[in-house]
Every structure is written in C-alpha cells, then in structure tokens.
C-alpha cells in the first residue's frame, strides 16, 4: 500500500482509508492531523474517510509520516462510474 497522497486529488475531494491490520497505534497521524485522525481509547484509530479541504496538507503529511505506511489517500474510487 502506498503512503503518498495522490496528487490532483484536491479537485475531486480526498478520501482516505487506513489499513488497520498494518496500523500498530503509533498515532503519528493523530498528532499531525488531529482533525481527521483520532485515537479511540489508548490504541484504536478512527478517522474521517472524507477529508475536509482545509486538511489536505496535514493528511498528506500524516500519510507520509506513518511508520507502517498504512494510510492511503486519493480520489474517490469509481468516481468516473456512470
């Protein structure tokens, strides 16, 4: 799973998904983008899959910093579905 946020995602809105099998609760994302990623209890991660526009940069930074590279950010899949 790639960690980098897909460029050009700004237009269509950014979605994220975290591979919580990989996640070990280092919580770097919850430090770096606290509006989007939160710890639920001491270790469980929850997050807002639809990233608010003013959080894109922080979310990219969080995805980059994830020690287990578990965060995928990008355009909504199948947005071209019609």
């Amino acid at each position: 799973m790639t960690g980098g946020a897909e460029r050009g995602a700004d237009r269509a809105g950014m979605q994220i998904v975290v591979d919580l099998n990989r996640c070990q609760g280092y919580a770097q994302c919850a430090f770096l983008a606290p509006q989007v990623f939160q710890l639920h209890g001491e270790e469980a991660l929850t997050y807002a899959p639809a990233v608010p526009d003013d959080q894109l940069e922080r979310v990219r930074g969080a995805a980059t910093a994830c020690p287990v590279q578990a965060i995928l950010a990008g355009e909504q899949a199948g947005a071209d579905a019609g």
Partner: protein
Amino acid sequence: MPAEARSDGRIVIVGASLAGLRAAETLRDEGFSGELTLVGEEPHPPYDRPPLTKQVLLGRVRADDVGLPRRRAVEARWKLGVRASGLDLYGKKVLLANGEQLPFDRLLIATGTRARPWPDPDAARLDGVFTVRTRDDAGRLAERFAAGPRRVLVIGAGFTGSEIASACRERGIEVTVAERGPAPLVGALGGTLGAFAARMQRAHGVDLRCGVTVTGLKGADGRLTGAELSDGGRIDADIAVIALGAVRNTEWLAGSGLAAGPRGVACDAGCRAFDMYGIVTDDIFVAGDVARFPHPLFEYQMLSLEHWGNAVAQAEVAAHNMISSGPHRRPHLTVPAFWSSQFGLNIKSIGVPTFSDQVVVAQGSPEEGRLVAVYGYRGRVTAAVSVNRAKWLEHYRRLIETAAPFPPGPGAADRPESAEPVPSDVPDPKVLSHGPTVALTGHLPDRRLTLVRPGG
C-alpha cells in the same frame, strides 16, 4: 489449452466493493490493457465497510462519506446498481438482472456476503428492525440512534454485534445483547477472550444475555416493540439489530457448474475457481469474502475469511494470476488478520484463532485490559490476538509463519506469572447466534467436519 500470459481481452469483475476495486487496480498496474468491466449490485462506488459499525454509528462520520480512495485510475466500465443473475460457463457470459449479457475472456467473482436476515420475514419488516451491512443500512440506523431510542436489542454477539453495542453505550443508549453461545466473540476468539469480552461489555453497561435465543420479535402497528427470549424473558426495545453473521452471495451461480454454495465459491491457492467436478477452471477467479481456499499454514483446510485484509490480498493475487502464465502465478498465502475496536479497546488478530486446541495469555493480562493471547494447535502456534498491545503482534506473525512450537518460550518482560495454556474452547459454530468470521470448512479440527459439496 495451457494458460498464457494475456494482457488484453475482456475481463469482467462481478462485485464492485473492496476486492473488486483492488483487483481492477492491480490488473491495470500489471499491464492489463484490455476491456475492464465492474458490476456492482449497490448503486454506490466502492466504499469502506469497517467504519459503518464504528464511526458512522457513533455519529462522527456520515454514511455517505465512507468512500474508498483509489490507488490509481482503472479506466473501467462501471455497472453499478445492477445485480448479476447468472453465469454461462459455456458461452462465457455474465447475465445481469436487467437482461444485459456481459461476454468475458476472464471473470473475477468478488460478490462478497450480505447480512443474514431475521428468519421471520414478517417480523423482519417491522419498523425498527435492522441489519448492518451496507452504507444505506448504517446511515438509517445512525439516524435512529441520533433520535435517542429507549433501548436497542442486538441479536448476536460476534464482532458486528459487539461493535454496535459499543456504539450504543458510547452514545448513552441502553442496549441488550442476546447471544445463543456462552459469550461474545467466542466464535472467533474462543473461551478465554470470550469471557474477557463478556466482562468488558457488562462493565460498560451492556445488558448481556448469553445462552439465550430470541424466539420472536414483537410489534404493534408495524413498529417493533420488543422481543421474547428462550428463557421466558421479554425485552422492550424500539430497535433490534440482527447481527447473525453473513450469507455468501452465491445464489446467482446456482446451476452454473461452478463449485459454489452456501460456504462460498471454492478455489485453489491461486484463486482459480473449481467447477462442480472439482476440476480447476482456468479463466474464472474468486477473491474476497465469497471465496473459500486452501491455506498451507492451516493444513490446507479450506478457509473462508470475512476479513478486510484478505479481500485486498486475495484480490491482488487473483488479478496477478488472471494475466500471468502458469509458472508466474502466485499462491495466496497471506496470514489472515483482522481488527475490531469496541469499548475503547483495540483488538487485533493474526492467524486463525479458531484453528486451535489451546490458548495462553503470553503477555499482559485480562485484568489490566492489555494482553496478547497466543493460540496453538497440536503443539504449534497458529494465531495470536492482542488487546491494546498491537505493537507486539508482528512477533507472533513470525511464529505462525514458521510453525513455531506452542506454547511460546519464556522471556517476555510482561509475561504473567501463570502463563499456563488452557483449552481454547472454540465452540461448534452451530451453537452461536453470530456466525464465525472465519469458517473452517475442510477436514480439521474434527468438530468442524464438513465435506466439500460441489455445487452446494
């Protein structure tokens, strides 16, 4: 005809959720340049299900916002909101419910599962009776939670039921959980962690009733009013959530000639589907919740895994194999893994805990709410489950992959004084309300004896 690497032609993927999406992306990533079609029964583009019973029911995330990010563009035709109704193996066509026919050169079946409905269809139609599988289900239930119900009845204490109960308590909603088995989560995690889960639920104010079945749902004026229990008890509730496990979406394959039935679609380690004679096909592949496949770490038993991670990993292998020739094909050998968060705890599993005869708490303790439980079968490590101790789990994955001896040796600094293995107490699935999220459908362990019945 020998399998050859084919990067062109027509590929149809039936199922447009996690497995179907990741398969499509892998096909394009690995150079498939032909025509790609995805068929999805739901009208929505691919979305992520795990948040539905967590963030969405907590009211923190809207059900419409759980869409999956793409890894790359797939340049596919998306046929959403239409159900596949049949498969013509001879004509190599998928039949759609709207009458359309989709010819293919290779097919990926990724139709997943749906929620097992309440057995009484009239009661199931009562206002207030829910299942949670789709984002529409979760959105409607979240609205009802927000309106402040008097009491929610959750029927079935597997992971889904337990997470829903957790969301209720966190929102301050009274909740009763009814489970036919001896404890919550026992079907997936066995007796030791089942007992832990029961204490955790009660500590959070869940009215947990184990060893009972709901014998009937009661209603008035089309609205749910409560339920009757097998022990003579009665629960007043305005919402009932049916969490009785999942049903595999294989009906559309009935009569197709594939080895498809209630237990899923059988395939080999390379995700190629078996036909009803047990002969492996060469252009029909299976991935995700609907697949059942042999796993060498678990004595080649056929596994069906309702796991997010399996859907991704198996889709990647299936897609790779769809466009690779014989010796370049890969086996799907990923060690199964899943997670659940409930009652403020992070529960993670690696391996197959139900494939066990013993369990030992190797680190921490249930009392402190932080632990690693290690499972063994016939003297080797087959699984580990952590509660708020995820950083250690990698170590146990290595033990599982190398079939390390069970119980694991001493040395952990936080090993409890009494680290003695006890029976893992995995009950027969028949005694549970909630279906197990891992179904062992092969020849071992003995209690789970089931013959592969082609065509189910």
